């Protein structure tokens, strides 16, 4: 009887590693549909597209690591269905694997558009193919001004391509950041020769490569077919357990009660995948740990590093710290006078500080946040 993990991405991988780190001795089977060693996705749209790093450097660990840690890694195999009544899963090969605890970490897949010949970016396979197509193209259209679309656009521009970005909303990364930050990024992309068309759904028919980054859909089928409740994600409690106490769900696919949002949310980030993997492992190892990590996220575009801490969605007041003209500033978000999130542009120290402030619940006033001479460290002391 063992732990079975369905999905060998960032979250599934972390669960296995954290179980062993916690001294868990039972067998662990990590099953992934992709034919690769578990890898991280962020470099795919950044260093890899730019040609700064090879695809193999995205691997989280070398193959030898799994044997050494007694983690049975099965790649290129899909978990086809769950049989909760027998506590077993059935693989695409027909093999049955039984579990004591099952962790669902199947992530998400790209939302596709009803247009032919479009490239998407989610997996290593996508990235290698996109890079080849990118090298051969001169003119590129990007559909979607979210962070993936913009990272691809930035990489293409650095590689000397003519790039147009089409965004349906009237500003960039609208789901993630405030208008000041959107406008800052519109300018940065403009300075690099990228044409940004806002409120504009149509792809440029003349482009010789069209890439779409229009969001993802969580992989819910396994859970739904097993009769587990799903909504915008697989529904879990604060311990990341589904309605079946032997089945956890984590990462991009999981909808959980988020104390920072005061609601159930589903987040798509490395932080969320890693920290939920750690929490699931802790709970399987017998600790009763609620998931309360501060959400954070980053994107790199050209020489601009955007880091987000907390969730800014519910903000009723925004305060600028620093001047966007200097290309180094933060936006502090407040809700009813309480700090709920901080977006930092080229201020990585302030981002780390923001995460500490949010985790500690320390009180910062909007006036202090706006005052650059006010040392944020003093609040934590």
């Amino acid at each position: 009887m063992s732990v079975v993990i369905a999905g060998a991405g960032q979250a599934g991988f972390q669960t296995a590693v954290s179980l062993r780190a916690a001294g868990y001795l039972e067998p662990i089977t990590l099953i992934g549909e992709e034919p690769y060693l578990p890898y991280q996705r962020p470099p795919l749209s950044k260093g890899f597209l730019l040609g700064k790093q090879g695809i193999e450097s995205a691997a989280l660990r070398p193959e030898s690591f799994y044997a050494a840690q007694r983690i049975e890694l099965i790649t290129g195999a899909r978990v086809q269905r769950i049989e909760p009544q027998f506590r077993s899963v059935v693989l695409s090969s027909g093999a049955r694997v039984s579990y004591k605890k099952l962790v669902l970490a199947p992530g998400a897949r790209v939302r596709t558009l009803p247009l032919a010949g479009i490239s998407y970016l989610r997996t290593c396979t996508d990235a290698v193919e996109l890079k080849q197509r990118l090298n051969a193209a001169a003119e590129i259209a990007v559909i979607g001004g979210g962070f993936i679309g913009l990272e691809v656009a930035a990489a293409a521009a650095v590689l000397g391509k003519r790039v147009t970005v089409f965004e349906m909303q009237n500003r960039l990364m609208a789901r993630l950041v405030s208008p000041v930050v959107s406008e800052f990024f519109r300018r940065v992309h403009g300075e690099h020769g990228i044409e940004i068309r806002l409120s504009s759904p149509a792809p440029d028919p003349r482009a010789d490569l069209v890439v779409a980054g229009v969001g993802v859909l969580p992989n819910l089928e396994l859970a739904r077919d097993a009769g587990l409740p799903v909504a915008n994600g697989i529904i879990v409690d604060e311990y990341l357990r589904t309605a079946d106490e032997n089945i956890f769900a984590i990462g991009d696919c999981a909808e959980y009660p988020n104390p920072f949002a005061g609601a159930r949310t589903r987040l798509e980030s490395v932080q969320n995948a890693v920290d939920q993997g750690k929490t699931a492992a802790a709970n399987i190892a017998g600790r009763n740990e609620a998931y309360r990590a501060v959400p954070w996220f980053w994107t790199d575009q050209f020489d601009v590093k955007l880091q987000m801490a907390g969730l800014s969605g519910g903000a009723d007041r925004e305060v600028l710290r620093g001047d966007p003209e200097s290309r180094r500033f933060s936006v502090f978000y407040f809700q009813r006078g309480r700090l709920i999130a901080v977006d930092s542009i080229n201020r990585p120290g302030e981002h780390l500080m923001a995460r500490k402030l949010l985790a500690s619940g320390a009180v910062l006033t909007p006036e202090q946040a706006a005052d650059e001479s006010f040392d944020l460290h003093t609040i934590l002391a």
Partner: protein
Amino acid sequence: MPLFGKKETASITYISHSGAVNRVDVPVGDSVMEGAIRNNIEGIVAECGGACQCGTCHVYVEPQFLDRLKPVQDDENEMLNTTASPRQPNSRLGCQIEVTLDLDGLVVRTPPRQI
């Protein structure tokens, strides 16, 4: 995914806060952070996987090696001011130190806390 082929390596020694000593061969081109993570050495967290975003790969470099390292960049400098364990003159982010043959024999210490 292809395995890491045979590459030149440099020997790096990691000394944990509790005193555990691990000497490992790290491929040239990998970072000091990767050398720790890939060999399962405790004391380095690396939440962001080496993207210079998290500050949880903080190390103290044995002083005699400091002048062999490339200088601290702006981002790294700022983050070192807010790491979980206090910054020392020999503080660096492990993901920002690329292993070269010149660093063969490097010794780093991991701090008491990364988070």
